[in-house]
């Protein structure tokens, strides 16, 4: 199948600092693709480069077969890519509904927009209940839902999600990832960037690992979850269960306290 989004040898960065180094990846229609990597690896930079917010230094970005490397952000959104930025970036003083309507800014069909609005309230009932509340009064999880729903308002063919689990409680993380899965099941295509590598790979079809601006591993999500190198670097080691890391942290704290007592 032809990929919906293709990056071929993409390099970019800020000022003189090169962040992405010849990155090649693709996202096929109907897939969830997870991009994982350490802080500073260039994950958000990659999304911003796709959106045309950072100039491409080399390589090509193709969407649906056409190059969007030299296209403005507004035109890229118009072509059908929507980004849900890190930290959500909602319009805090505007209501839930106003935020959603702004997501449809590029659309001109009033009836269609109204229909999309109801669709989102169907998908996220809590947003319907809070329709007239200002966005800043929502809890973290609700804000994340609003950010996703706002992106959906432009009826994107591809959604870029930047750290959807950031700052969310465990229960809410599970719920957001469920929502992402149901978006895919409804025919959506999603590229998700996550620190929470396990949660992202759990719902993804495929994944890429970005390290210092380079892709260092790729493959089926399940295979990446089993990959020892990936486990070591991003999943808290091979015994990377919740309890495993917790026990290591506890043991370390005891050691530190003991050595401090010896010192003093």
């Amino acid at each position, binding site marked *: 199948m032809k990929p919906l989004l293709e990056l071929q040898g993409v390099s970019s960065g800020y000022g*003189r600092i090169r962040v992405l180094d010849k990155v090649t990846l693709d996202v096929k229609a109907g897939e969830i693709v997870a991009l994982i990597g*350490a802080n500073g690896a260039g994950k958000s930079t990659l999304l911003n480069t796709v959106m045309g917010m950072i100039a491409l230094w080399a390589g090509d970005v193709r969407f649906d077969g056409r190059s969007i490397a030299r296209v403005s952000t507004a035109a890229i959104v118009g072509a059908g890519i929507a980004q849900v930025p890190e930290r959500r970036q909602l319009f805090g003083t505007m209501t839930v509904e106003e935020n959603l309507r702004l997501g449809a800014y590029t659309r001109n069909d009033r009836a269609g927009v109204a229909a999309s609005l109801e669709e989102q309230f169907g998908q996220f009932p809590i947003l319907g209940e809070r329709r007239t509340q200002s966005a800043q009064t929502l*809890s973290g999880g609700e804000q994340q839902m609003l950010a996703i729903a706002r992106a959906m308002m432009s009826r994107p063919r591809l959604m870029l999600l930047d750290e959807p689990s*950031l700052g969310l409680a465990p229960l809410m993380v*599970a719920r957001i990832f469920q929502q992402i899965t149901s978006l895919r099941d409804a025919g959506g295509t999603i590229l998700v960037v996550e620190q929470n590598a396990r949660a992202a790979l759990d719902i993804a079809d495929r994944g890429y690992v970005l390290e210092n601006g380079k892709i260092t591993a790729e493959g089926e999500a399940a295979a990446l979850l089993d990959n020892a190198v990936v486990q070591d670097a991003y999943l808290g080691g091979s015994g990377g269960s919740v309890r495993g890391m*917790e026990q290591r942290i*506890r043991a370390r*704290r005891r050691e530190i306290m003991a050595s401090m007592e010896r010192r003093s």
Partner: protein
Amino acid sequence: MRGLAARKTTLALIAFLVLVGGYPLLFRNSYEIGVGITAGALAIGAVGFVLLLGYAHQLAAGQPAFCMIGGYTSGILCVKFGWDPMATLLLGALLSMAIAYPIAAPMLKLRGFVLVMGSLAFQLILVVVAFELPFTGGAMGTYGIPRFAIFGFTLQSDVAFYFVVWAFVLATIAIGLNIDRSRIGRALKAIAISEMTAGSVGMNTVKHKVQMFVVSAGMASVSGSLFVHFLRAVDPTVFGFVFSLNLVIAVIIGGLMSIWGGAVGAAIVTALREGLRGLSLPMWETVIMGALTAVVLIAFQRGFAGWISDRFDRLTGARGGKPPSVTEPQPTALPRLADAPQAGTPLLDVSSAKRSFGSLRAVDDVSFTVEAGSITALIGPNGAGKTTLLHLVGGYQPLDSGTIKFAGKPIELLLPNRIAELGIGRTFQNLQLFDNMTVLENVMCGRYRLQTSGILAISAKLPRVRRDENDVRRVARDCLKFVGLQGAENLMANELSFGHMRLVEIARALALQPTLLLMDEPASGLNDTETERLAELIAQIAALGITVLLVEHDMRVVMGLADKVVVMHHGKKIADGPPDRIRAEPAVVAAYLGTEAYETAA
């Protein structure tokens, strides 16, 4: 960066001396020397304006009013009472500052455009006063002002006066630079980014703005006095619209955040005005000046001086290029807290705390204690009120009712900066770094509460101020070593990756030498490997004797680190106790952990 800044200052000083010294050699006639004098007088006002506009971020347009006070004080005392011009200049400056001080606080309560109008109104009042008072000379003004003299020594030549004026410029710049590189300069830059964050390290957000208002009033006054001694007359129109415009344009062209920029801008504006006057097209003069200002605003956002500074950085490769080399954290870089409270005694005691927003009870009758030397974690679903509770402890929001005691003393009525002064540090959920400063300067900001130098000592850069700054720099470096960011000192804070920014924030909080550290979701946005490293760092912080109150969602961190866990739900405390008991508490599992989410992950 200190080396770089010092090198830049030296180069700027050499350029200044060459230009100021060379000008009268090249331009010898009395008109040209006069132009040099007016440029210098304008420069003094402009440097003061930079302190007010660029550093204190106060769009107060009242500068010319203080030029008027200085000008009239000099003029009247010299002409009517035969005072010595230098004495009148100093007296005028004192008078201006004495007037500025009481009006500063109410004036600076106004913001943005309203402040512009308020300060213009002040100026308007003074113009009317100058017209109407019996001893100002009304519309005719006061004339016959003598040549400038310094305590009896009259400057007979214009060239001598020129050098005296530019010596004043140099002194003004020195004061500006001393303020820039001090705790006050850092505080002003911090306040410009976020008053809340500045408060979290103990910075007083009002005091320093008032100080800048007063200092800039003094500088404006000196500028005004020198002007009237050059003109040998003063009337209400001297410091009118055109003068105000020149001052604003000088500051914009020079660079809002550059002390040197004030002088550079004043020189450029004066040269342009005189050059354009030569074309004898009076109307075009203002048009061209306006167009030029617009061009500078768009093309050189940091003004001319900023542009030169950037060029210098680029030529010498001083900045950018390489990401920081992260070092291993050095837990021995910081000493144990000397006056740590007895472990196990309650250090923080929150009792029946309540806070509502409209009908939403964000914090509803919550009581708990944090024992000295412990790590206490505060958990709960999003919207449970954890951050609000942390805000209440930090003084960012008032309590509706209840008490909060720190080391036995009630703190619920204190403002954030007072709470920071007591030794409560904090890090924020959304990173709050000062993007306009380097990493090292950010951490130095944390030291603010332990520095005591006042505005006078700083302006004069007394030896003790210098020593104090060196100490603070050393401690800040130790804090960066402690968190493992030794290589990043000279980068701008916004050049770091997210995870490193978080470490800078922690280092800044440590520089405050806190007894209690409040951390709001320190692991959010970190991957597992980074999270584990962060947990180790928090354990090291606790080992210093610093008590930690942590809001965190990552249960591996919470359960692994905490001695005690407090659980909130819908604003209420639903449980507290040691991690193992909390884990088994059914109410906690239902509200927060989620049977499925937690166990499948486990």
